[in-house]
């Protein structure tokens, strides 16, 4: 095969034995890789408890990994989410996906539970297990340093050991598989880290075809102001979006009680650039280089983190945001959930947290001490326990990121129906509603949004399976990536055919969630967005969302997605998509 190695590594931590799975080309063509293939291996286990030893932990790269295809350095981590109970997956950058392919593997499936804390070290075909007891309690940065030259690394920190529901996995020191609490899956398996390195190369069927596809993609990326423009992600990182959200009056502020932050200009990307002098840094195989690092090697916060540790908490100190970001990553926990949980805490306690309190509480959460123990359950369980469930701004128990849905109705629908809970990336309608890519749409209307959300979810499922980065799709499209896929794998395809595969991958996730009892009851938004207006101003009115309009749009979404009126998969659609 080209693109794929045809080999998946299976590791049983009970017996410390390894084996090889060879799924055959038909399975690859049906699910591609990354999110699609990981989902294929998760579906038979999805009704097990997340901490059942037989619940698989899945790490998959895609056919484009290790090739010249732009932004091919990403990969997928998947299991059942300890935080939401849904399918839990995260697309993550760094080098791990590429190194896994170099070692000759399209994916890794880990089951069982080690008797004591362990590490897995992979070097080409050789897999060894180490005693990781001495790494317990250590920060992720320290563990990454200790692992040094062993290869690309995936590690967890104290948060997962202390049962934090939004524990993350940190790849290559700076890249987080942040959402859905996947760090806890590592902990449930007594797995502290994985390293991988290899000497192989990805075989490409048509190098000239790939070169042409690459040139087309790079040209479109260069012409995208969001990606490579003067004010775009290459120059400022995702922080570039901060000003835009505030100017559009949809910046989550004070635990989503406001949508405008008076101090935004003091906390924006330009301020960070001036104050911390960041350098460009990026995933393997990517020319966008969206990650920003100080000369001392400290990562600047991503947009979501900037928002959640500034406006969402009414904090006006960038040093606090930097420290909160650093500490979350060192503890191994998701910055979005951490910030949002602290915002719920702030609302429930009726007090604005100082910078010192923010940092101290993050440490308390990670170390499972004091109030941090209760907060480590996430905002949904914490607010419920405090008798104030309305303070938790979550969908399916996952805290919302930094786009207030009252300012973008496609985003509202996208949050609600997302298969992993309150996530902006499943459909990412901010692209069209705010960033005007690939085409601008009316952000204050549900008209057309059901179809846009459905198609975008399908497209992004493909992106996460190839694997590639969503950012480059602010310039290029699946039309160009279909050519890259065909050139790499030798399997002729088209943008539309890839979308059909994306539809299958996404529908499979709906099926898995339905098997665990998820339905339209869970495809909903917090009441706040239907009952309270946002912060209007500058000629922009931010009103509460009309619930009837939302319900109508959701019904239409179910229709175009091929679900029944309760959001449950239909038998005929399951058959049509080849998912029986």
């Amino acid at each position, binding site marked *: 095969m080209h693109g794929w190695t045809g080999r998946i590594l299976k590791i049983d931590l009970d017996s410390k034995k390894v084996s090889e799975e060879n799924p055959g080309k038909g399975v690859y063509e049906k699910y591609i890789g990354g999110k699609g293939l990981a989902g294929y291996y998760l579906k038979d286990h999805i009704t097990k408890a997340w901490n059942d030893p037989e619940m698989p932990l899945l790490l998959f790269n895609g056919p484009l990994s290790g090739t010249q295809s732009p932004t091919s350095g990403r990969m997928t981590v998947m299991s059942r989410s300890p935080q939401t109970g849904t399918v839990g997956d995260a697309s993550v950058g760094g080098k791990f996906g590429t190194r896994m392919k170099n070692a000759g593997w399209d994916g890794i499936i880990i089951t069982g539970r080690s008797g004591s804390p362990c590490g897995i070290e992979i070097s080409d075909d050789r897999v060894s297990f180490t005693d990781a007891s001495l790494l317990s309690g250590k920060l992720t940065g320290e563990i990454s340093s200790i692992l040094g030259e062993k290869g690309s690394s995936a590690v967890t920190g104290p948060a997962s050991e202390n049962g934090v529901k939004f524990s993350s996995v940190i790849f290559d020191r700076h890249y987080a598989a942040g959402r859905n609490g996947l760090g806890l899956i590592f902990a449930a398996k007594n797995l502290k880290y994985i390293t991988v390195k290899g000497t192989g190369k990805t075989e490409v069927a048509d190098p000239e075809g790939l070169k042409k596809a690459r040139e*087309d993609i790079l*040209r*479109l990326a*260069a*012409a*995208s*102001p*969001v990606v*490579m*423009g*003067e*004010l*775009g992600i*290459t120059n*400022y990182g995702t*922080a*570039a*979006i*901060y*000003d*835009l959200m*505030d*100017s559009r009056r949809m910046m989550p502020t004070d635990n989503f009680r406001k949508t405008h932050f008076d101090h935004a*200009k003091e906390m*924006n*990307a*330009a301020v960070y650039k001036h104050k911390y002098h960041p350098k460009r840094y990026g995933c393997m195989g990517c020319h966008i280089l969206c990650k920003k690092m100080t000369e001392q090697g400290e990562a600047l916060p991503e947009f979501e983190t900037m928002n959640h540790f500034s406006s969402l908490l009414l904090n006006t100190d960038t040093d606090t945001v930097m420290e909160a970001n650093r500490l979350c990553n060192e503890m191994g926990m998701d910055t979005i959930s951490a910030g949002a949980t602290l915002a719920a805490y702030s609302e429930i306690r009726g007090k604005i947290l100082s910078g010192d309190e923010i940092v101290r509480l993050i440490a308390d959460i990670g170390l499972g001490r004091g109030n941090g123990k209760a907060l480590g359950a996430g905002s949904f369980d914490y607010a419920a326990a405090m008798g104030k469930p309305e303070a938790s701004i979550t969908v399916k128990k996952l805290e919302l990121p930094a786009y207030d849905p009252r300012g973008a109705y496609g985003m509202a629908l996208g949050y609600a129906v997302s298969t992993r809970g309150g996530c902006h990336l499943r459909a990412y309608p901010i692209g*069209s509603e*705010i*960033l*005007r*890519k*690939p*085409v*601008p*749409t009316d952000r204050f209307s549900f*008209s*057309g949004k*059901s*179809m*846009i959300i459905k*198609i*975008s979810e*399908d497209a992004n499922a493909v992106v996460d399976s190839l694997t590639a980065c969503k950012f480059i799709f602010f310039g290029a*499209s699946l*039309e160009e990536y*279909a050519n890259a896929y065909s050139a790499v794998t030798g399997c002729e395809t*088209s*943008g*539309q*055919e890839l*979308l*059909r595969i994306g*539809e299958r991958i996404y529908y499979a996730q709906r099926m898995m969630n339905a098997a665990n009892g998820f339905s339209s009851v869970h495809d909903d938004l917090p009441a706040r967005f239907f009952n309270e207006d946002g912060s209007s101003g500058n000629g922009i009115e931010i009103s509460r969302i009309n619930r009837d309009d939302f319900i109508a749009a959701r019904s*239409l979404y179910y*229709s*175009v997605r091929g679900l029944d009126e309760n959001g449950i998969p239909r038998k005929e659609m399951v058959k049509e998509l080849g998912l029986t």
Partner: protein
Amino acid sequence: MKRMMHIFENKLIEQRLIAEDTAIFGEREGSIVWNRTTRLTDILESVFNSLNISSLLYSRPAEPYWSLLEYLCESSFPVLHLRDNETRTFLHDIPILRDFDPAAISTELRRRKSVYVLGHGIVTHGTMTSEQAFVNYSSICFSAFVKFFADYLVHIRAGEASAAEKETMKRVLDNLSPMNEINDKLLTGPFATEEDVYRAVSEAGKPVVRHGLVDSVMGNVSYLWNGVLFISQTGSFLDALEKCIDPCPIDNSSCAGITASTELPTHLAIVRGTSKKAVLHGHPKFSVIMSLFCEKHDCPNIDACNTKCVEQRYLGDIPIVPGESGTGKFAIVNTVPPALADSRGAIVYGHGVFTTGAVDFNEPFQNLVDIESMARTGYFNLI
């Protein structure tokens, strides 16, 4: 209910790209809704159902696009390769079919945004909205126009124009709108308030569209005022800029202009450190056509004119420079600003024209008109 497809059908008619009652436009949200029912609607519905899209558009183009597209597609069957840069970047090429066969149309639309069916016209789609279908349709008309005239010039100069090509040109010229005298008066600067600047920028785009100096969502316009560049947003229609202008501080103290035009770096480079305040960028067809015309057949960069041309080329007094949209080594930000230093305008090879003004948009607009007029006259002199 007024649907997006009705808005964009009207836009196609206004821009004389189609005749009234010829477009079949469909949108889907739940079920498919068509703007009209004809004998082709069933075929198009089966195409629609075979694709994961939100809208589908079919129409026979109006003249002169019909004649030149029929000629180009017949002579270059089964695929039409485009010559202008922007359109080629996102359309790549246009597959051609001989029959209005739903399976064949579906097959082509699976891999490309549009297909041309000989004897029928353009079929195109929007994955997310009808606006994408409109932009595709408009772009095909623009790029086919440019290709036909550019190719004809080469062929006629080399004595290689065929009878069919000459006959087509005759029909095209019979249907080509004359370039009337244009003397639109725009708001007079200098501008006292931010509100005036917004109004001036909005107003400046309208005549550019009205006089055919730009198509679909191409082109951009900006004005520097009090350290802030007010520039049209990416993907905006120049005749509808009222809510599509981004204020970008030239000291980059805010990224709120991340949605600004792709050419923001070029606009900034033009106004930074100069007395220029107003920048206008359009895609007037004959300027683009003439920029493609070069008779240096032994040039080592002949396959990369848009990026690597090193010749000092001019149309009259106007420099013609290479460059691509956006950023990077070959971006126009490296070529256009220096070319404008001592010139009333600059033409980007296969792309469009930039003009500037020190006070308001009257000067750059008039220069845009003059350059296009010069290009048109020059073209017809050459043939």
